[in-house]
């Protein structure tokens, strides 16, 4: 190789070396785009596994489920998790339209978590003041984590599913820093319940 060729090799090595040395400084200036940002909402059974979910419920008996939220938003997020209770005719959240249920929340959790961190809580619930008469049933009181709510919720016998269908569902809402308000995050999970008998 001629001297000019070696000179080019030295110049190339010099440029690569300078770029490598400047990498930490360039890292402060150049920001690479992050991955997909989303929140996750999940419901687990009383053994903290996706099994043994309460379904056939009896008035006066305690039941429990785990509810959890995972954040993959790239920064901390402030969530509100609403617990709502409805029957088979009540409006559920609409995932396509991204709208929450029109039912008023009964119970709520509020928490803030950092990116890639999960939040989880055990929810205990029971129904009382319930009645079944022919094809009609009624749950008057729902207790969630020792807080008692008057729900006065009727349900008609569903001959297809052979149940008195009630739904305990969870809606995830998130605080939007830009608007300064808590908005529905289009994440919800539903625990379907069947009132089988009253004491």
């Amino acid at each position, binding site marked *: 190789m001629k001297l000019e060729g070696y000179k080019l090799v030295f110049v190339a090595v010099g440029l690569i070396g*300078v770029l490598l040395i*400047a990498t*930490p400084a360039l890292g402060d200036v150049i920001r690479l785009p992050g991955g997909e940002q989303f929140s996750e909402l999940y419901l687990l059974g009383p053994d903290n596994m996706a099994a043994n979910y309460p379904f056939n419920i009896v008035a006066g008996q305690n039941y429990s489920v785990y509810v959890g939220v995972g954040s993959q938003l790239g920064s901390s997020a402030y969530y509100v998790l609403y617990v709502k209770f409805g029957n088979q005719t009540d409006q559920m959240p609409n995932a396509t339209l991204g709208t929450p249920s029109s039912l008023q929340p009964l119970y*709520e959790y*509020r928490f*803030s978590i*950092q990116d890639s961190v999960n939040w989880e809580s055990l929810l205990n619930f029971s129904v009382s003041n319930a009645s079944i008469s022919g094809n009609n049933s009624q749950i008057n009181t729902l207790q969630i984590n020792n*807080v*008692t709510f008057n729900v006065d919720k009727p349900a008609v016998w569903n001959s297809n599913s052979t149940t008195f269908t009630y739904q305990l569902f969870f809606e995830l809402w998130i605080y939007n820093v830009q608007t300064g308000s808590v908005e529905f995050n289009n994440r919800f999970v539903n625990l379907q319940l069947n009132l089988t008998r009253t004491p």
Partner: protein
Amino acid sequence: MAFGSFLYSEHYAFAQTDQTESKLQAANTAVEQAFNAVLDAEKTGANVTGTLALLNTAAGILAQAENSYRTGDSNTTAAQADSVLPIAQEVTASAQDAKQTALISNQNAVWSTIAFTVIAGFVFVLVLFLVWRRFKRSYINSLSEAKPEVNSQ
């Protein structure tokens, strides 16, 4: 007189509800402001794990206050909403301090990085130049030694 008493109690109930609602609103605003402060601190690179744990304490009490409000327990709601405020204010102050500390730390880190880049870059180029000069000299010398001699005869 009974009617008057009824009106008074009605008015009292409405006033108490309004007061409870405004306390809840104030607690909500305080927690949201605290979260904004924590997020700002986090964006500057501050470690917000401890501050976020404290914020969760305030948020948890606020949730209890909202739950109490739904059961119609105004006194508990008001007491819980009131107890949220000092915690949220502490979070805000702590997050603002963390942000300032992180900003100063970031500034120092930026200057250190710039200084490292300039000095290391200069040293690298200088060393490379010296190596190049030495290489060039030895290359020319090796060429001179390899030059065929001209026979004068």
